[in-house]
């Protein structure tokens, strides 16, 4: 069960080994600077969260890491290899697939509706590692067990599975390539609370057993607290705060981080209105000029910060 050999050749001093190094990453879409000078490093078996709201650029960072977007400038180095430019060959592209994989929020739209779970996993294993049929069957069994799917579910089509089960399939498929880093882009956001807890526990187990590193892209600070050690907070493409997760959440320094933290509902929480409206108070929360969706807002009193 634990023999998912994601790290078949353990190297010396794994604690120091940097799996992912992102330096001065920039992405422009026309005039819009979606990602503005983002840098971070991620060591083996560590988990780092990128926190932010719509338009913060967090998903664009994720897409550049896995090669779905091309950086305007800056470098991405995974496992010592630069991946800032598109791979020139199939072999190189597959090698990159063994370095980083991604799991998206909606498992339904990222699975082939006509492929059973077993075939989905088998295909990835065959593509990346070319073992013989018996080994592949064994790997498929190991992976489905690792994510908690039984034999019947392994033979099922995505439509026959629940949302939580499908998300497990998406995680298993990502792990089938034996990546060194797994990008979780809001991967638990759409799950019911009771299922989300199962998947978060599962992710903790997998990291412990395989030494895979996580980049957790999330807007949910409680989830961030649960499965990351380090956090960067992004707003409008820029990193506004970074540090150990506990420190960022317990003693946020940036006003925007404080605002995010104060917006989390909890027992005794009272929602505070930050924008003005006719006949209403304007309550300053100590936050920055509000721009909830990250749009260019100039005057919160008139625009409400939205488009």
């Amino acid at each position, binding site marked *: 069960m634990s023999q998912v050999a994601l790290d078949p050749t353990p190297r010396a001093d794994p604690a120091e080994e940097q799996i992912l190094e992102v330096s001065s990453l920039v992405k422009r879409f026309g005039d819009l600077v979606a990602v503005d000078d983002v840098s971070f490093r991620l060591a083996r078996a560590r988990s780092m969260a990128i926190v932010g709201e719509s338009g913060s650029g967090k998903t664009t960072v994720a897409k550049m890491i896995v090669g779905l977007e091309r950086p305007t400038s800056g470098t991405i180095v995974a496992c010592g290899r630069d991946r800032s430019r598109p791979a020139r060959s199939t072999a190189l592209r597959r090698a990159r697939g063994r370095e980083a994989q991604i799991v998206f929020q909606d498992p339904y739209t990222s699975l082939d509706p006509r492929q059973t779970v077993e075939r989905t996993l088998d295909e990835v294993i065959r593509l990346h590692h070319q073992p013989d049929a018996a080994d592949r069957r064994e790997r498929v069994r190991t992976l489905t067990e690792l994510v908690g799917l039984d034999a019947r579910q392994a033979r099922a089509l995505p439509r026959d599975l629940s949302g939580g089960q499908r998300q497990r399939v998406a995680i298993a498929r990502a792990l089938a390539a034996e990546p060194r880093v797994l990008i979780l882009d809001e991967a638990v956001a759409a799950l019911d609370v009771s299922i989300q807890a199962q998947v978060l526990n599962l992710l903790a187990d997998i990291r412990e057993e395989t030494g895979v590193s996580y980049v957790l892209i999330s807007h949910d600070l409680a989830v961030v607290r649960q499965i990351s050690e380090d956090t960067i907070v992004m707003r409008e493409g820029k990193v506004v705060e970074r540090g150990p997760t506990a420190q960022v959440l317990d003693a946020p320094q940036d006003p925007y981080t404080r605002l995010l933290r104060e917006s989390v509902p909890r027992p005794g929480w009272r929602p505070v209105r930050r924008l003005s409206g006719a006949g209403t108070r304007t309550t300053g929360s100590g936050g920055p000029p509000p721009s909830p*969706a990250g749009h260019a807002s100039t005057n919160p009193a008139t625009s409400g910060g939205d488009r």
Partner: protein
Amino acid sequence: MTNAGPLLEVDGLSVHLRVEGNERPVLRDVSLSISHGEALGLVGESGSGKSMTARAIDRLLPDGARVEGSIRFDGAEVGALSGGDLRRYRLRVAMIFQDPRAHVNPVRRIGDFMTEVLRTSLRVPRREAGRRAVEALAEVGIADGGRRLDQYPHELSGGLLQRVMIAAALLTEPDLLLADEPTTALDVTTQAEVMAILDELRSRLGLALLFITHNLELAAAVCDRTAVMYAGQIVEVRLSSLLHADPLHPYTAALAAARPDVDRSSARLRAIPGRPLSSFEAPQNECAFAPRCEYARRPCTEASPPIVRIDGGLSRCTRAMELRGTLGVAGHTEATSQGEVGPLGAAGGGADEPTVGPGGQLGAPPPSAPPTGRPAGTLARSEG
């Protein structure tokens, strides 16, 4: 409008839908009440029936739905309304949804959308309707309403469009707002803004609110009372201020404990085994939550438990009396490291409790005074 009695009273509501030729239960014996100006949270996971409850209240169930039980609004039986009466009812009961974009016509301007009901149902002149729309937009913090009326939905962000939906819902001066996950698709800071607006409108206009969400913390923070649904049934109704500290049903406690905590990480989350069941999948002749419940014992699987009044709230747990006082969040925090909530510290201790009865029909004591200054609703009598 009278202030005697609840504004909305749902009693023994059961709904069956026809799915591929079979009748399937989607709601089973749902009872709840909302007073004038009160906010009731309705919390549950996928398939629990929370949205279906709102649809039943607004008479928006699909064709072929079989409805039993009663829904009374301001004393009138909603199921018996038709024609003009039904239209007038819907003016008084407004509804907003999770995805505002799915509920506006993308090729019509905001102004047309907002004023349509005023112009067609209430015969308000166009200019006057536009003026009222601008006023309503101001209510939800959109000051440049005149400009917004000329815009199309795609020109507005999600948070702004949801505020437009709320403003549109307010135009007919409703008494009750049914809000179905209105902030789920929004960023947290925008969610806080929208919740603050709803809260403020409620206190200023005396608007009653049925707030549907999957987020227990959110419901508890903004609603006077919270009802928790599972598999088509209401399993608990509790003063929101007591919901985390002293839940009455193991499912409520399990939901709260499964959620990661923004203040601390734990070695393991207390996941609920299995997955949420919809009403037709769940066992019908035993406790619907029993297959996933860590407290389930034999009596739980022998009969479907009625909802009973206990400690000022309602619980549909076979062992509610035994478990009272042991399910709270304090217990959970300790239990997280130890793996078990110490069960049954006070087993049998509730034997002298005289107020519990099937269906909550026995004489209920006055509820303990609500700690907030807000209306406590009709805790005492009307949920049974």
